[in-house]
């Protein structure tokens, strides 16, 4: 019989990481994602799977605890929301430089600064373009349902270890807080120490006589060597761009107009597609599931089919830059976003699409 439960998004990913065989979670409370740490603590993970859960003194400490565990070959993670993720950028950059696998979760809230605790998508640039110093990328998964919050725990760890890279689940306050049904799957066993030595021979597990010492460092003072390290990193990102793109096409086959949206905005646009079809507008939705790697090729293909694209984001226009790069001027690409924790309504975004591409092109800012 299927194991189906009604869960919050934050609880679903917490259950997901337990079942994905996560070894350790290190985190610090922040709204709207504190349920992750709360759920893990309440679930006595130590007794259930042996998973360690620790409340750190700060987000900075959390990410560096993740660094230590990841460098020793364990499946480790942290979660936070926007201001906390900003604090973690140092550690994320160090993990990028040392190619350490880990799972990160950002349940995005409005910014800048302390902002608001309401949902937002204004951390796209920070997440997709690399929020810390140096030339690096993370794999970014954008869940649009509570089920995906659950699913991306396991997928995230798989991708992290497959490519030795950080995987960020870029959620938002709405997906984190809303409740939906979730289908759970079987428990994945945690790796034994012997398995870790085989799966991650680079990990610092203690130098044994059969191998040289393992060193995890992002430092190389020789610029010639440091350039080679960087070139190899870029090769890895290119390989990920070529092999790991994920997206969902919703009513795209006959679409003349296209919404491009991820996460909560994609849910809103999904409804707007239904409303649009009722109005006789052939509109579809391309939902990027991976924000890096971005579905550039798919969007370039769709640009040859549709008359215009509307990038809908709860931001001032961040993903739209990647949409425009993919479309490369073939058709008009417009942006519509609500800011500061406000979510747009389906008819609102549909009206904007109509105004931009179907009725005369005279854009007026939306007001409530």
């Amino acid at each position, binding site marked *: 019989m299927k194991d189906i439960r009604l869960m919050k998004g934050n609880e679903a990913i917490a259950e997901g990481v337990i079942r994905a065989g996560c070894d350790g979670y290190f985190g610090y409370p922040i709204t709207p994602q504190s349920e992750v740490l709360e759920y893990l603590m309440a679930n006595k993970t130590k007794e259930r799977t042996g998973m360690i859960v620790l409340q750190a003194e700060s987000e900075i400490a959390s990410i560096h605890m993740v660094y230590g*565990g990841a460098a020793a070959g364990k499946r480790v993670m942290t979660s936070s929301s926007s201001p906390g993720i900003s604090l973690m950028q140092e550690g994320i950059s160090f993990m990028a430089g040392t190619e350490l696998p880990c799972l990160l979760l950002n349940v995005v809230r409005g910014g800048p600064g302390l902002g608001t605790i309401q949902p937002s998508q204004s951390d796209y640039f920070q997440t997709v373009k690399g929020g810390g110093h140096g030339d690096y990328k993370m794999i970014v998964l954008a869940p649009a349902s509570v089920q995906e919050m659950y699913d991306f725990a396991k997928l995230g760890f798989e991708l992290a270890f497959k490519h030795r890279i950080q995987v960020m689940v870029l959620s938002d306050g709405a997906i984190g807080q809303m409740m939906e049904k979730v289908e759970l799957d079987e428990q994945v066993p945690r790796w034994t120490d012997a398995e870790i030595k085989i799966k991650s021979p680079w990990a610092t597990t*203690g130098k044994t006589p059969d191998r040289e010492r393992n060193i*995890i460092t992002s430092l190389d003072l020789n610029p010639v060597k440091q350039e080679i390290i960087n070139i190899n990193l870029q090769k890895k990102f290119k390989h990920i761009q070529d092999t790991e793109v994920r997206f969902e096409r919703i009513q795209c086959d006959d679409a003349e107009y296209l919404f491009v949206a991820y996460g909560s905005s994609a849910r809103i646009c999904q409804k707007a597609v239904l409303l649009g079809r009722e109005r006789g507008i052939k509109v579809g939705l391309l939902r990027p599931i991976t924000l890096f790697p971005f579905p550039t090729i798919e969007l370039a293909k769709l640009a040859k089919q549709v008359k215009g694209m509307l990038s809908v984001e709860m931001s001032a226009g961040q993903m739209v830059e990647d949409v425009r790069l993919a479309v490369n001027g073939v058709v008009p690409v417009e942006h519509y976003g609500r800011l500061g924790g406000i979510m747009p309504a389906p008819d609102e975004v549909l009206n904007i699409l109509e105004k931009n591409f179907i009725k005369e092109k005279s854009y007026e800012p939306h007001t409530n």
Partner: protein
Amino acid sequence: MSHIPTKDEICEPENMVYSRTCLLTDNALSYCPGCGHGTAHRLIMEVIEEMNLQADTIGVAPVGCSVLAYDFMNIDMQQAAHGRAPAVATGIKRLYPDKFVFTYQGDGDLAAIGTGETIHVCNRGENITVFFVNNGIYGMTGGQMAPTTLPNMKTATSPFGRDTETMGHPLKITELIANLPGTYFVSRQSVHTPANVRKAKKAIEKAISYQKLNKGLCFVEIVSNCNSGWKMTPLESNKWMEDNMFPYYPLGDIKVPK
């Protein structure tokens, strides 16, 4: 004329009374001649070898002069971001409670940028060992003022001497963390004379062996010279350390198990 023995003849096994621990690599130390880091490295590695802990040890190197400690220590090591070694070590130790985990940190790393991590790793009583080399200055970046710089001491960023009214007071972080219930053994040593080296080694032995007891964090501060940063000869710097550092940072055990 009597035969002068060659190096190879002298290095016969029966003549060997001391040799470098195999847990130090062949890499030439990058520390300035006269600096205490090399001796501190050697003592820690000697004890790990003597306790047969190489296969169970994971070390964490900081940012600072000892950023390249992993070049010299023949063990598995992680290089941590500035000040974050205690958090990194926490992550390792929580996931590998049976391993021997230590950090090796300087005063800027441990007592300035990493103060929060230091206090909390001690307060949680993580079963790790912290080696803290305190020379009262930022050595690697070129002799700037550290949290442990003494009053009126001249550095690159306190060229007229540390004015405690505007620049704060030297931080006795070791006394501070000794007050926390999470610390089990806290000692302050130096490595500038043979007698002090022997005492320091005993403290290091305790700090390493006590980790197995899982009774809390073990902490050994080594007050060291920085002849380059202090702009002195090695001998002058050792004398200055005795006259000025030791009165403020007195040597000896600060907290011992009951």
